[in-house]
């Protein structure tokens, strides 16, 4: 042992190790023989006590953090994810999956778009003819469209789109029909029940919703906002997709199915595209 003072860094390391009970016997003896080292140990002990000052936790914030963590555990692949949710299947961006949904589906969208265009053009023409029979036919067409697109109609009314439809009350415009919104639901069970009533799902065969306005619906602002953020297994079929409001939160609703599997419901928040539900329908 030497009487020469230690360099500050070496003295600090010695004192710090002693404080932690990590000093060797020789180091301990060195400290006990040196008053300046003992003072340094005291100084570092004060620092340790200051860092140890308890950090209080608010109960509500603790519960919120725990709830968020548990919710994360329920996501696909999480330890609390529902049985059957895939953790190993290859995934592709949902938007990409929609884009690859197949030529038949795109043709269906185009057919629906053409039908809607015919209705929109026919209404003013029939109005001008002014015959009772023609008016009845027009009303019939419009009501058919309404019956299959109540939510779209609501959207059109709210945005004043009826005025833009040539003054034909109840005749949805192509723009209004583009938004396939299932409306508000107070709970997931109600949304699930509504989905089960969708003819596309009842037939167990995907058909484009008759109220959507065509291919634009696949690249609407709402769905495009989640492009690349939502994923589905690569070989899944999209059976149905729409928007809705679940417990006050605007959501994207997708029903898809792996080959030979049961329809699976995917619900994601429009804002942030976080997956809220991924479970069998």
């Amino acid at each position: 042992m030497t009487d020469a003072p230690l360099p500050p860094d070496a003295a600090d390391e010695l004192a710090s190790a002693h404080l932690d009970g990590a000093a060797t016997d020789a180091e301990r003896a060195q400290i006990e023989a040196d008053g300046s080292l003992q003072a340094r140990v005291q100084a570092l002990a004060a620092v340790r006590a200051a860092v140890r000052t308890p950090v209080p936790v608010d109960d509500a914030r603790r519960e919120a953090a725990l709830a968020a963590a548990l919710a994360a555990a329920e996501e696909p692949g999480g330890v609390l994810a529902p049985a059957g949710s895939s953790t190993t299947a290859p995934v592709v961006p949902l938007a990409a999956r929609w884009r690859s949904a197949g030529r038949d589906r795109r043709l269906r969208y185009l057919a629906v778009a053409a039908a809607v265009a015919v209705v929109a053009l026919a209404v003013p023409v029939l109005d001008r003819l002014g015959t009772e029979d023609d008016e009845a036919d027009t009303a019939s067409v419009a009501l058919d469209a309404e019956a299959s697109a109540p939510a779209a109609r609501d959207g059109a009314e709210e945005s004043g789109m009826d005025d833009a439809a040539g003054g034909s009350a109840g005749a949805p415009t192509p723009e209004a029909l583009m938004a396939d919104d299932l409306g508000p639901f107070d709970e997931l069970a109600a949304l699930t029940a509504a989905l089960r009533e969708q003819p596309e799902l009842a037939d167990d065969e995907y058909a484009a919703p008759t109220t959507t306005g065509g291919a634009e619906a696949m690249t609407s602002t709402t769905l495009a906002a989640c492009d690349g953020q939502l994923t589905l297994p690569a070989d899944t079929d999209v059976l149905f997709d729409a928007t809705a409001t679940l417990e006050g939160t605007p959501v994207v609703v997708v029903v898809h199915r792996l080959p030979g599997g049961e329809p699976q419901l995917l619900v994601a928040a429009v804002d942030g595209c976080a997956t809220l539900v991924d479970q069998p329908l």
Partner: protein
Amino acid sequence: MAADPDEALVDAARGGDRAALDALLRRHHDRIHGLCRRLAGNEADGLDATQEALIAVVRGLPRFDGRSRFSTWVHRVATNACLDELRRRGRRPVVGLPDERDPFEAGPLPDPRGEVPIDRIGERMAVDAALVQLSPELRAAVVLRDLCELDYAEIAEVLDVPPGTVRSRISRGRAQLARLLGPAPGDATSGPPGGGNPAGPGRRPTTTTPPPAAGTTP
């Protein structure tokens, strides 16, 4: 190594037992919060980092292999998540002023030992202000040791550095903190080697008795 007290809960949680996962997270939450709060330097960022850390723990649980104690693994995941979160924000931690978001910093607390009130706000802010001056490496080492009370070997595992590096980082971190915290008002104790302050903020020097089994001997 002694049996991991979390083992049963970990097994159950990994098997899909929600109650077990809840209990497991609840058991470690406050320590994670303390860690993130000290690393972040203020309550708001600390809360965000805590949530990110908990989510990281949950998502990483299927990959926990049991080679280390669960608590050590949790500290590792939480430390990385907290530092990542702070890094994402692209700035150094900011010391927060007490406000309505932090009901615990609403005023001085009485000294439970007597009639002299202790300014806990000032003390905590002083510690935060000093801690955020440290590099993340030193800050993490000091907080893991002094707040979380991990030993050197555990900290080495958490930070993925040799135990000797841990010892050095803790020492340098504490020495910097001693300088930054400055002399306590009215404290006439002379400064120690290295230019530090013999007492913390508003504190008298405390015991120098090494805690039993607090660390590893190099």
